[in-house]
């Protein structure tokens, strides 16, 4: 080929490369530049193939295809979070290529190569090999396959020197020989170089990875350049040099951004205190005259979140500072959503990206770009630092050292003098970090102690989600800019901010319909299939109502039907007769108020029901019909709580109606633990322990709540247990609340339901006040929507009863359809009546189905490794215990009991949220019910259809396996 054409083509390839790199100034240009550079290299490859005859085309094609295919495949599937590890890995591959080529060249040349060829060949070999091993180690550290902490070996520097020496020696030796001894010498030098790379990289810690990767980038380029010299290929030299330049720049940028000298980083080991030099002290510029004395304001986590939401709502400008913690928590998508929402609300939002945020220069930007953040919003530190003083709110996500004012206030720390984001200058600071532990430098962060800082510790993803909900919920209906215009709209928003509402209401928590359920409904609205296992709502999950119940209610709601013979003939005779009976006793119909305690003949029927069931006398005057048992519970609590120190004993775990109601009514909660290892039975020890704890805390126990059969535990109490409980109540002069709404749901044949009323009567206890509750919501009726139930009072004097009736009368009366449903519950068709057989059959089918589903769910869950549950003896729930791998960074022993509980709650919340997002299964985290410290639970109902339960168990097992694996690998 004509020489000048050849040169021209070579030049144009180089020109294309230069152009490609030059285009890398904006994202759009970068994409084009990448394509341009790729084209240049492909041209170069084509040229080489054209110019030279290939002696082994098949092997060449094979190697080319296999390498390209694997490279393409992995490159297309790698996630943005994995990029640093991937890039390091590729540096390694580059090192292998350079090293291998150098090896072959040297062995071919033997002792014939000139000095230049030998030296460059050796350099290419050594640098390539060291780059390979160093990069592989870096990649493993970045992928969290090995620990992040630097490992300094004893005599580390000595080892390095020895290795270097042996390499030098072997190379010198190899310079003068050829053939097999040369190959062996080179192989030895290669191995030593590999070791060198490993020893070199192993003492560089996780946070210094950006420097290391940049350095390896440069060495990979150098290796290529030296290879080029060895084979006398100008293009290799040129490209190699360019890449080396790039790596050098990035390394310098990283070192400057961390304010650590390059040598310091390579020396590795723990960060040593860095003395602040004269120059920095005088003209540092960022030093403050008198830093404020920080006084941290004590806030509960809930208060901090509330305040944060308020801050964000009112802020006009927000700067978000992301850190590596955000990547670890995979929170970038939620953060991006939050930023978008804040922008829609008219606020100025931007991201401040510190150059060293992340494990690789520029990594944070890629993660945020992936989350669809406008790249114009990703601002550099120098640019955005001037704006903090005028910014209303700063949101810090998973970052610590980069916002640590100690860097500019305190001398002699590992980060002294390091440029930071001036978050501390903003008006409000919201920190969403996992916990209070310092960053890699180990330097405590005084920003945490400033009064304007809100600390929202926990999983960043969950925290940001909470903030999102808080802000979007409030934003609905308030036009952006309303806060600026004085006038009606603005005033209304200010009047009803949550800061104006009842503290007790704000504090009350009811997890059964909490944020996870709301998220489930959101997903369902988007078309996702959700299996609701959060609430005992049988008819929402396919259970059919009992025919008799609905037939009777139907006729009672529209009595005119009874005058139409054609319609009457469609109903069973006994239903019609009963309807006429009821209408005779209660002629006003379903639309009128009834007497406050309920329709008299229904109260009578309830008393008869109790007598029949328990064989004891029952007084209809002491029965009050309520809107579901929940209202009955609240009535008892309202009546008995007299002073702020009064409290009720409630089981742990418990149905959160009790804890929420006590909070709402200003009463104290005295939790007693149920014994999970003993089928959730109550122990006397547990009861008396909690009583003495309460006494010590100055709380006066007035009542004891027992849920039998248990919610969420499903435990059916034995008679002995009930007697013991009554004994304790008697001794300590407590009132008893017996929540017995699940009395019809007993599946375990070894158990039987004993009512507290019966046992109380048989024990002859006439002192202990007993409030028993029943409802139409559960059992086999499942009529939750009808809100029907009753409260039966025992050992309660008449004047007290009057007060209860007065309380009931304030809401006038319970709803009539609910009262009628209660009537059907306590007075079902009798044997001999027409509907009786069908009633019994339907009841049996429903209960049998529930029993089988209980076993199906329970056994299925017990087969999942890492999960266990006591097969529910009754009720409708499985309170599942699960285990997660221990996070090595979390030191539970160093936390207080509250912090541990909060941590467990966060773990559960994240688990249940992920379970929902990944499988569509909606359960309630155990923290909503309370649990033994140190355990993790969630409550699931077994109400869905049977085949859904099977699918549920399978998906649950899969999810748990994935989740524990994921958390194991990211916990490093």
């Amino acid at each position, binding site marked *: 080929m004509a020489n000048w054409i050849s040169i021209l083509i070579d030049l144009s390839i180089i020109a294309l490369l230069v152009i490609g*790199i*030059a285009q*890398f*100034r*904006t*994202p759009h*240009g*970068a*994409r*084009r*530049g*990448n*394509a341009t*550079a790729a084209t240049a290299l492909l041209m170069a490859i084509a040229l*080489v193939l054209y110019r030279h005859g*290939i*002696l082994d*085309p098949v*092997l*060449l094609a094979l*190697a*080319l295809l*296999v390498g390209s295919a*694997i*490279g393409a495949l992995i*490159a*297309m599937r*790698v996630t943005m979070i994995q990029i640093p590890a*991937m*890039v390091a890995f*590729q540096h390694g591959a*580059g090192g292998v*290529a*350079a090293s291998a*080529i150098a090896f072959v*060249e040297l062995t*071919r040349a033997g002792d014939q190569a000139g000095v230049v060829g030998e030296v460059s060949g050796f350099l290419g070999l050594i640098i390539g090999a060291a780059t390979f091993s160093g990069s592989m180690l870096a990649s493993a550290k970045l992928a969290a396959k090995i620990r992040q902490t630097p490992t300094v070996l004893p005599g580390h520097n000595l080892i390095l020197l020895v290795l270097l020496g042996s390499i030098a020696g072997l190379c010198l030796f190899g310079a003068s020989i050829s053939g097999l001894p040369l190959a062996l010498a080179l192989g030895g030098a290669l191995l030593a170089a590999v070791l060198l790379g490993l020893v070199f990289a192993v003492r560089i810690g996780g946070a210094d990875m950006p420097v290391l990767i*940049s350095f390896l980038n440069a060495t*990979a*380029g150098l*290796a*290529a350049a030296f290879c*080029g010299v060895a084979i006398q*290929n*100008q293009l290799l*030299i040129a*490209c190699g*040099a*360019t890449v080396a330049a790039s790596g050098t*720049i*990035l390394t310098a940028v990283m070192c400057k951004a961390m304010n650590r000298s390059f040598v310091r980083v390579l020396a590795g080991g723990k960060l040593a205190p860095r003395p602040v030099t004269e120059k920095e002290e005088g003209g540092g510029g960022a030093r403050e005259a008198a830093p404020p004395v920080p006084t941290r304001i004590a806030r509960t986590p809930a208060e901090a979140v509330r305040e944060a939401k308020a801050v964000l709502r009112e802020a006009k400008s927000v700067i978000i500072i992301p850190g590596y913690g955000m990547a670890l928590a995979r929170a970038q998508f939620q953060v991006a959503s939050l930023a978008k929402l804040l922008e829609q609300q008219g606020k100025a939002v931007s991201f401040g990206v510190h150059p060293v945020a992340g494990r*690789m*220069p*520029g990594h944070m*930007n*890629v993660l945020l*770009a992936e989350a669809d953040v*406008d*790249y*114009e919003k990703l601002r550099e530190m120098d640019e955005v630092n001037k704006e903090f003083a005028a910014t209303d709110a700063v949101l810090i996500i998973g970052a610590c050292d980069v916002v640590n004012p100690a860097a500019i206030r305190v001398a002699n720390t590992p980060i002294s003098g390091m440029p930071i984001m001036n978050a501390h200058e903003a008006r409000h600071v919201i920190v969403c970090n996992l916990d209070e532990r310092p960053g890699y430098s180990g330097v405590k962060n005084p920003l945490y102690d400033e009064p304007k800082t809100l600390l929202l510790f926990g999983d960043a993803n969950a925290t940001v989600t909470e903030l999102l909900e808080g802000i979007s919920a409030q934003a609905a209906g308030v036009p952006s800019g309303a806060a600026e215009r004085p006038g009606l709209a603005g005033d209304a928003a200010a009047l009803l901010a949550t800061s104006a509402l009842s503290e007790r209401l704000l504090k009350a928590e009811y997890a059964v319909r909490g944020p996870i359920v709301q998220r489930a409904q959101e997903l369902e609205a988007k078309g996702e299939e959700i299996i609701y296992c959060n609430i005992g709502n049988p008819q929402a999950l396919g259970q059919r109502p009992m025919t008799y119940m609905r037939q009777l209610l139907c006729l009672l709601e529209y009595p005119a039907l009874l005058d139409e013979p054609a319609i009457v003939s469609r109903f069973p005779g006994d239903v019609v007769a009963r309807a006429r009976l009821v209408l005779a006793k209660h002629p006003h119909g379903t639309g009128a108020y009834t007497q406050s305690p309920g329709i008299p003949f229904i109260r009578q029927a309830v008393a008869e029901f109790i007598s029949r069931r328990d064989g004891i006398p029952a007084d209809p005057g002491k029965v009050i019909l309520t809107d579901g048992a929940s209202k009955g519970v609240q009535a008892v609590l309202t009546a008995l709580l007299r002073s702020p120190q009064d409290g009720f004993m409630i089981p742990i775990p418990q149905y959160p109606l009790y804890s929420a109601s006590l909070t709402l009514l200003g009463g104290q909660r005295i939790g007693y633990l149920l014994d999970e290892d003993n089928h959730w039975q109550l122990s006397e020890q547990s009861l008396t322990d909690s009583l003495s704890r309460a006494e010590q805390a100055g709380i006066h126990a007035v009542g004891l709540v027992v849920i039998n059969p248990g919610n969420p535990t499903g435990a059916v109490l034995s008679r002995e247990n009930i007697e013991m409980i009554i004994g304790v109540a008697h001794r300590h002069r407590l009132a008893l609340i017996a929540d017995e709404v699940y009395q019809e749901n007993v599946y375990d044949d070894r158990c039987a339901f004993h009512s507290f009323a019966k046992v109380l009567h048989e024990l002859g206890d006439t002192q202990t006040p007993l409030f028993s509750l029943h409802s139409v919501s559960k059992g086999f009726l499942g009529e939750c929507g009808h809100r029907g139930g009753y409260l039966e009072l025992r050992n309660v004097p008449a004047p007290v009863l009057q007060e209860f009736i007065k309380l009931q009368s304030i809401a006038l009366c319970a709803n009539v359809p609910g009262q009628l449903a209660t009537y059907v519950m306590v007075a079902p068709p009798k044997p001999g009546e027409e509907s009786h057989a069908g009633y019994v059959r339907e009841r049996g089918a429903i209960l049998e189905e529930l029993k089988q589903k209980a076993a199906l769910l329970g056994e299925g869950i017990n087969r999942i490794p890492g999960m266990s549950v006591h097969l529910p003896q009754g009720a409708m729930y499985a309170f599942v215990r699960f285990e997660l791998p221990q996070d090595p960074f979390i030191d539970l022993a160093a936390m207080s009991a509250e912090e541990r509980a909060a941590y467990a709650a966060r773990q559960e919340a994240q688990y249940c949220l992920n379970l929902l997002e990944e499988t569509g299964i909606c359960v309630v985290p155990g923290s909503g019910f309370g649990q033994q410290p140190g355990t993790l639970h969630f409550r699931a109902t077994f109400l869905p259809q049977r085949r859904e339960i099977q699918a549920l168990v399978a998906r649950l097992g899969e999810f748990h396996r994935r989740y524990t694996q994921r958390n194991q690998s990211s916990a490093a």
Partner: protein
Amino acid sequence: MTELVLMLVVFAVSFGVGYLLISRVPPLLHTPLMSMTNAISAVTILGAILLFAVPTSLGDKVIGALALGAAAFNLVGGFVITDRMTRLFKTHQQPGSDGANHG
């Protein structure tokens, strides 16, 4: 000797030009920059190909194939990843100085 001098000049000029060009790359794009320069460093593939243009022993061929595969992995993987990453950056506003770049 002249060859050495030539190679040194090439190295120095390339290093210098590279330094100048790359110091203009904004921190926003540092990660894709690294993966692209990585791909460019896979120019060693040319050296690997050249190994197949001369008679070599079987052992050398195997090593050569290894070098070729690794370089191909690096080359293709690097450019593909860079492309993926640069695609992610979007803006809804008018981009700043994009008009200056024509490709």
